[in-house]
């Protein structure tokens, strides 16, 4: 991730490892062509995933923000770094 002096935070580009898991799941799970395969994920299942993710990731981000606020109140909050990313 890079942060320019104008404040725009650019994630990804040449260093794709900097893309957060949230960004990936936003696109990979809920977008893309649905060619009706022999199996297609049920929408109910997808909603459950979002619910679970939001609980985990919101907790992670809140903890990170809280730490940042105590260390340096003017720093921008970091992108979420959820568990499980390899």
């Amino acid at each position: 991730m890079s942060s320019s002096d104008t404040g725009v935070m650019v994630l990804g580009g040449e260093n794709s490892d900097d893309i957060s898991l949230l960004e990936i799941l936003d696109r990979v799970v809920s977008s893309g062509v649905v060619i009706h395969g022999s199996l297609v994920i049920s929408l109910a299942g997808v909603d459950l995933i979002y619910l679970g993710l939001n609980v985990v990731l919101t907790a992670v981000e809140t903890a990170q923000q809280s730490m940042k606020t105590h260390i340096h109140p003017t720093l921008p909050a970091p992108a979420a770094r959820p568990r499980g990313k390899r």
Partner: protein
Amino acid sequence: MATPVKKKAAAKKPAGTRAIYLYGIAQPSRKKVDIRTEAIDGDARIESVRLEGLDCWISRVDRGEYADHLAENMENLEWLATIGVRHQRAVADLAAKTEILPARFGTVFLTDESLKQHVAASKKSIQSVFRKISGSDEWGVKIFRHSQNVKPAMVEAASGTDYLKRKAQSVMPRAKEDDPTLTAFTQQLSKLSVETAAGGNASSGQPNLVWHGSFLVRRGNQKKFANALRDFTAQFVDAYRVECSGPWPPYSFVGHNV
């Protein structure tokens, strides 16, 4: 039972226990497309199959993990995170080397014949989507309000009801931001794009997120798009923080069904 995440798949199994995982469908390329990215299961090859004049990029994977137990596995966040990242890496590698329509995560076929039939049935729609995405990338934009601007509910509340309303707003990440400046800005970005799409649900719970979406931007227009982002961010740096991600394969612009 959900499948534990494996770094390497087990030894090759007979054909009846395999399934075909689809990453996306590409226009045939004149030169050889060399894909060396890790496959979805960390082991199989990523290969292309020419069907109906289109290149289907697939891996042959374990049927139990990717077909029979796919829905359960997707509720296992560790599995989903690992496999989701592999899917993105493979599709990003393909998109860098060929024009591809990314398939939705978890598009699985049990036989080659089934894949062929579905591609044949969707061929016309696939061709029209190719025309739309040609020469473009997807860019994601997220706009966050600085957290200190949504906190003074207790100080400004005129009554108990007012307090509760303000409190509810401050903890509702999906609350709509009624700021004409923000609307004008996102409309400006839309004008520089081929198409605009709403942001995905995985991010929608992020604190202080007031707008997120994706733009399909022609490569010739990328500089103008980046300048518009920089100008807005510099002008409203006290109120908002902007995150831009990309370039992405055009996930959000290939339609839910073709």
